């Protein structure tokens, strides 16, 4: 009996923990466990979740993409300028950031797979470059409808209603970004669990040499993972622009650490001990619930950081004490 209880606690420990946190906050504040607040929380994590999906994918092939935050920033301002400066139709507004994200991913892939610079080093360099590019592109200005241009004229376009709906609208009472997020989580989960390419990524991350000797085109697989990571970060940036209705400089800078935190908490979900999409999603949920609930309790924002850190430690400690014991 006891023997079976322990692994169970470990496996579902992280989920139980999220449940307990929810129960705790619900008792504390009647407004917490309401449909409106739950969808608020989900909407608040939707952007970070997209970025975190990208990070999860790069970590799956055993790479670490530090450039996602910068990619979010670039994608946000590019999206906004497509409308504000160039008055492009919605399709272009949506496709261009995808292309931008893919390009950043290709640059990472080139440096890591071809030049063979270790992943952390290469993506750090790309982070600087992309950060610089996004500010150079707008000359450091944030982008908003009919903004005054540095040359004294006024920008012709505004952020279109349709576009803003993506980040702010609702479908059947559910915020649209939440729907997008859930679709993305499910799609990527299915991708990893049920498709050939997903499996190839997982196996490549498990042991690149063994995967290569099993006939996988590991370079292609890894390059694809970085491109996917860039594209998901870019979607995050697009949602960002749509949610706030403007293109803010440096919008993505805080996203890197936040998404990494979500992914790492995700290591603990189902005691996986490695990156997994469902875990990442619940990691983001936990972080969102904590921020929302602690704010309701009027905990100072700086204490929120401590709580976040402690939660991260607890989640990781439970998982890794368990994993290491099993391995020993």
């Amino acid at each position, binding site marked *: 009996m006891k023997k079976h209880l322990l692994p169970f606690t470990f496996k579902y420990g992280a989920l139980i923990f999220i449940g307990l946190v929810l129960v705790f906050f619900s008792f504390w504040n009647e407004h917490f466990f309401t449909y409106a607040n739950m969808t608020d929380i989900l909407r608040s994590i939707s952007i970070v979740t997209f970025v975190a999906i990208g990070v999860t994918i790069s970590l799956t092939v055993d790479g670490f993409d530090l450039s996602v935050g910068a990619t979010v920033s670039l994608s946000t301002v590019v999206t906004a300028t497509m409308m504000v400066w160039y008055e492009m139709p919605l399709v272009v507004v949506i496709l261009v950031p995808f292309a931008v994200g893919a390009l950043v991913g290709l640059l990472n892939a080139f440096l890591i797979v071809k030049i063979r610079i270790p992943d952390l080093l290469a993506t750090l360099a790309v982070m600087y470059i992309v950060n610089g590019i996004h500010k150079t592109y707008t000359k450091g200005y944030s982008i908003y409808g009919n903004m005054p241009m540095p040359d004294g004229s006024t920008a012709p376009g505004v952020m279109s209603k349709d576009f803003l709906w993506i980040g702010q609208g609702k479908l059947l009472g559910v915020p649209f970004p939440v729907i997008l997020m859930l679709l993305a989580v499910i799609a990527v989960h299915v991708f990893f669990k*049920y*498709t*050939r*390419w997903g*499996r*190839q990524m*997982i*196996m490549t991350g*498990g*042991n690149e*040499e*063994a*995967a*290569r*000797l*099993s*006939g*996988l*085109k590991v370079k292609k697989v890894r390059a694809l993972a970085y491109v996917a990571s860039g594209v998901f970060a870019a979607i995050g940036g697009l949602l960002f622009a749509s949610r706030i209705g403007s293109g803010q400089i440096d919008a993505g800078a805080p996203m890197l650490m936040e998404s990494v935190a979500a992914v790492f908490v995700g290591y603990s979900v189902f005691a996986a001990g*490695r990156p997994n999409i469902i875990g990442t999603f619940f990691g983001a949920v936990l972080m969102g619930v904590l921020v929302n609930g602690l704010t309701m309790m009027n905990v100072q924002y700086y204490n929120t950081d401590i709580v976040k850190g402690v939660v991260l430690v607890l989640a990781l400690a439970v998982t890794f004490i368990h994993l290491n014991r099993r*391995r020993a």
Partner: protein
Amino acid sequence: MKGVSKSFAGVKALKNVDFSVRGGEIHALLGANGAGKSTLMKILSGAYESDEGKIEVAGAEYDFRSPSDAKAAGIHCVYQEVDTSLVPHLSVSENISLDRLASSKGKAWLKWGSLHEEAKSVLARIGFSESPRTLVRDLTLSEKQLVLIARLLAQEAKFAILDEPTAPLSLEETEKLFGIMNGLKDAGIGVIFISHRLPEVFRVCDRITVMRDGERVLTENKIDLEVSEVVRAMLGRTFEEEFPKLEAKIGEPVLSVRGLEAGKRVKGVDLDVRRGEIVAVVGLVGAGKTELSRVLFGADPADGGTVTVGGRPARLGSPAAAVGSGIALVPEERRKEGILVRHSVLHNLSLPILSSISKLGFLSGKAEREFADDQIKDLGIKTPSPSQLTAYLSGGNQQKVAIGKWLGTDADVFLFDEPTKGVDVGAKSDIFRIIGKLAQQGKGILYLTCEFAEALGLADRILVMCDGAIVKSFNRGEATQEDLLNYASAVREDLE
């Protein structure tokens, strides 16, 4: 050592083993792969803790909890896995003095001059010519082995354990090592020597202990023993029993290699394998067998030559291309190259056939499981379930997974590089059975090994490789172990 037992994740590696060494003797420890020799020595040197049993040195009882405890008692060990004992980006000198640098006692300051000097003088004793300042990562495998031997010499040892030190060494280097061992013996040091090369064992040792399946089965003075007795003790049976040869119909050539060149390790290799034929490539360690198999599989680049599979020229750009041409490789380093230890048996088995069990990119879970179940049943893979991590399988079963994963591809040619390395006797004969069955299905088999006996038992044809070139070809029944050994070392001897 008395009554030592040790288990790993369900495998009982040592069962109540007694073992003793005298000062001033060379004591050979023999046994088939996986008999538990290395494990016993790791316990003696403090790298593992035993489950049961005790260790006495000069009458005093010890409880080794770490390698430094054993070292304090004067027991030093050269481990079999060379790379686990060396720090690649440090210099040779430092690697030689690693124990001293690692100890918590002693001088805080390093004197590089004297460090290099000391290293140089030890290296001179074993005829190592590289500068002691060279980084270990730039050395070849045999040089690395010499560095480890030098480290042993630099210690004040009462007992020295050498776990297969001669494996990567040339004959010349081996001779030097024996000189050193005799020197140690004369100095009153007890030397434990592990090797699979029986002739050299008989030449150099005083006493022999044989282990089988984790038990000690024999300890005698050398002069009281015959080679055949030792072999019988090691295997528990005679040769013929171990290699039951399945008869297969031999057809047209399926693999043809002409003038294959790759670096210094593969020099102008020509060979043919016919359908249903098992061709063994034998050679001493370092002859270039592994390199040959990797080049054929596209894992390493070729400099020249052509390869034809089933009459069509094969592309050698990458393993993916080789698989496409119908070649499969079961690589030598199982845990690093053959399987993914952190993944399940199921996922390992289905890895090369992902495209054939998926539609529009979606995997068929049913097809995957059925394939895995078939392999687990056919190959007799001992696993609680297909979702077990391969890390928790025993070595032989891991090897079966590494083989089984290729059986779903319709490869025409199978390359086996030392598939029985580190595999226990039962699993070994299972593997031979699988190989035989593949031949019966009309596949071409290229079997690369340094175990001549295996080649003699299994192969239809034996090619002898030496220094990267095929120097001789024997048909089944034409050769003896001696012939093979002569040709395998011929070039070297000619050069001397």
